[in-house]
């Protein structure tokens, strides 16, 4: 009865002797032997009967005989010890059987001969389930990674949007202020000019009087002298020209700022036309190298001409501002390299300098209006914000990366055909949408 039971057990049971020759196999093994071998399997070495992992099986059997201690093997590390097909050759996903094996040392009760009993378990179902789970978890992990990336992208897009918003509101404010200040500056300037003339007239009169002094009577001479003296005429004469000169200078500065603010808000009149970026770049190099001679200037472009549709004024202004920054970053020696890359739909301009670079903590703020690290009175902190607004108006993208003491790269990408800038509200809507698109995917 036990013989039958062991024979029919749903696990493989095989017994081998110390020479690894088969003593017994149950039905589990027999069913999987080639038909012609089912009667003559006894006394055959087990590794000949089941070829494949012979070396491994021998090693394990040896260990069991030597140590008299069970040995285990799992499908995860060694899935197919015996070359058996999956028990579901028609419908199963796996073609080979996954196996767990256990070898136990046993002894023949009658002869005392040392034997080893091999238990083989078919774990194909578990293995295939496990592997499916693993695939699933890998897929999940991938998806998770993708989501993380997306979230990061969204984060950047959001901060870009915030930046854009800031710029827009500051731009409006700046336009308003510029307009308001322009009027008083106008009359102050006119008055100041007149005042200068009047002052020179007054001085001429006084000087005339002083020149004619000797022809006056002594009494009158004394009185006039006293008058000059009491009003500190000499000091007044020197100071008045100086004061007016300084005021005019100050006013010019105010006018410059207002001009820049107006540029910042980009109230341009020229309108969209064809702009040759290469020509603009060459022009700028000539212009800037005259003023900043320390750096070496290089220009690189595969084409003679690269044209975009755009507003020449703001575009030039933007490039100019970036270039000036680059030039100012170089104190003694260095280079500035302009590269224009042409692609079917857009143009990329790279401005690279080997200058002092921008500290990381400042990098975030460089496009902010009025952000500057220059001493007071030497910079208005509007250069890059003007450039930003100009490029944004062209639905382009400007980005900056920098390493302190190594240099800075500013990359500007402008689409060749800007979206229609129709004045109607519908058009504006479209523009805004396009802007958002370019921010996200730019």
């Amino acid at each position, binding site marked *: 009865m036990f013989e039958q039971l062991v024979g029919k057990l749903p696990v493989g049971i095989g017994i081998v002797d110390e020479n690894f020759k088969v003593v017994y196999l149950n039905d589990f093994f027999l069913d999987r032997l080639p038909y012609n071998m089912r009667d003559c399997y006894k006394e055959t070495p087990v590794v000949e009967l089941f070829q494949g992992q012979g070396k491994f099986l021998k090693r394990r059997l040896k260990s069991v005989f030597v*140590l008299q201690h*069970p040995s*285990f093997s799992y499908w995860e*590390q060694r899935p197919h010890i015996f070359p058996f097909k999956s028990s579901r050759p028609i419908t199963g996903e796996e073609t080979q059987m996954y196996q767990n094996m256990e070898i136990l040392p046993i002894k023949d009760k009658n002869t005392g001969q040392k034997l080893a009993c091999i238990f083989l378990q078919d774990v194909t179902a578990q293995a295939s389930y496990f592997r499916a789970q693993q695939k699933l978890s890998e897929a999940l992990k991938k998806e998770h990674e993708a989501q993380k990336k997306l979230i990061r992208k969204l984060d950047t897009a959001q901060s870009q949007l915030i930046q854009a918003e800031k710029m827009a509101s500051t731009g409006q404010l700046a336009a308003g202020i510029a307009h308001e200040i322009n009027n008083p500056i106008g009359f102050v300037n006119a008055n100041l000019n007149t005042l200068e003339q009047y002052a020179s007239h007054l001085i001429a009169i006084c000087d005339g009087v002083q020149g004619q002094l000797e022809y006056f009577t002594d009494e009158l001479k004394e009185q006039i002298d006293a008058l000059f003296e009491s009003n500190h005429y000499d000091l007044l004469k020197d100071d008045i020209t100086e004061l007016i000169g300084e005021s005019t200078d100050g006013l010019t500065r105010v006018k410059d700022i207002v001009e820049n603010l107006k540029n910042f808000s980009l109230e341009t009149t020229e309108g969209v036309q064809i702009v040759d970026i290469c020509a603009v770049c060459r022009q700028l190099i000539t212009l800037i190298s005259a003023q900043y001679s320390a750096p070496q200037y290089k220009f690189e472009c595969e084409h003679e001409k690269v044209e975009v549709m755009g507003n020449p004024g703001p575009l030039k202004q933007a490039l100019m501002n970036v270039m000036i920054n680059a030039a100012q970053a170089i104190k003694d020696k260095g280079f500035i390299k302009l590269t224009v890359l042409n692609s079917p739909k857009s143009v990329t301009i790279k401005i690279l300098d080997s200058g002092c670079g921008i500290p990381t903590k400042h990098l975030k703020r460089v496009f902010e209006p009025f952000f500057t690290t220059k001493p007071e009175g030497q910079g208005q902190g509007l250069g890059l914000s003007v450039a930003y607004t100009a490029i944004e108006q062209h639905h382009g993208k400007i980005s900056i990366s920098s390493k302190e003491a190594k240099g800075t790269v500013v990359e500007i990408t402008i689409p060749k055909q800007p979206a229609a800038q129709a004045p109607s509200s519908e058009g504006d809507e479209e523009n805004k949408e396009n802007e958002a698109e370019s921010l996200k995917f730019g």
Partner: protein
Amino acid sequence: MSIVLPLDEEQRDALQELLNISMGQAANSLAQLIETKIDISIPKISAVTPTQLYSLLFETEDAFYTRQSFLGDVHGEVMSVLSQAGLSEVATLMDYDEPLSKEDIQEIILELCNILAGACLAGLSDQLELATNLNMPTLFLPDKANFDELQWQHSLVMEVQFIIAISSFSMRVVFCLDDESLARMKDTLDELLA
């Protein structure tokens, strides 16, 4: 360690001696199989809390961990910590071909643990005349948080270290017994001592 051992002095000495013998047998088994000399440390016996067990075992750097449970007259678990260093030399001794795949390494680790833990347990239960059966070993990735939440308070641990002389490989085997088994073992030790 501040916790009072659940064993008295005599029981402890006896157990240590028994362990020493069985560990020696285990080392011998492995030495036979891989034909090289193996050194063993003096067995340590102590009582630990789950958190202490964690730091005793799993705060080793560059190590593999396995666990294996045993049933029978006494119940418990054997945990092993294997050094990553020197494993390839041992693999060569165990007749594995270079280069080792991830699966090969896992298989070697499991087999080493099985041999050593099995031999130790067999030796110990032989001498105490207790019948035990060792289940298959599995790789173990312990998590400290889980250890802090374990239900038991104290456990008796028996620890021994195997060092393979010709390589930098070393391995620690730690036996833990549950309360019931501990009581049974104490009785058996008393019988032996009587």
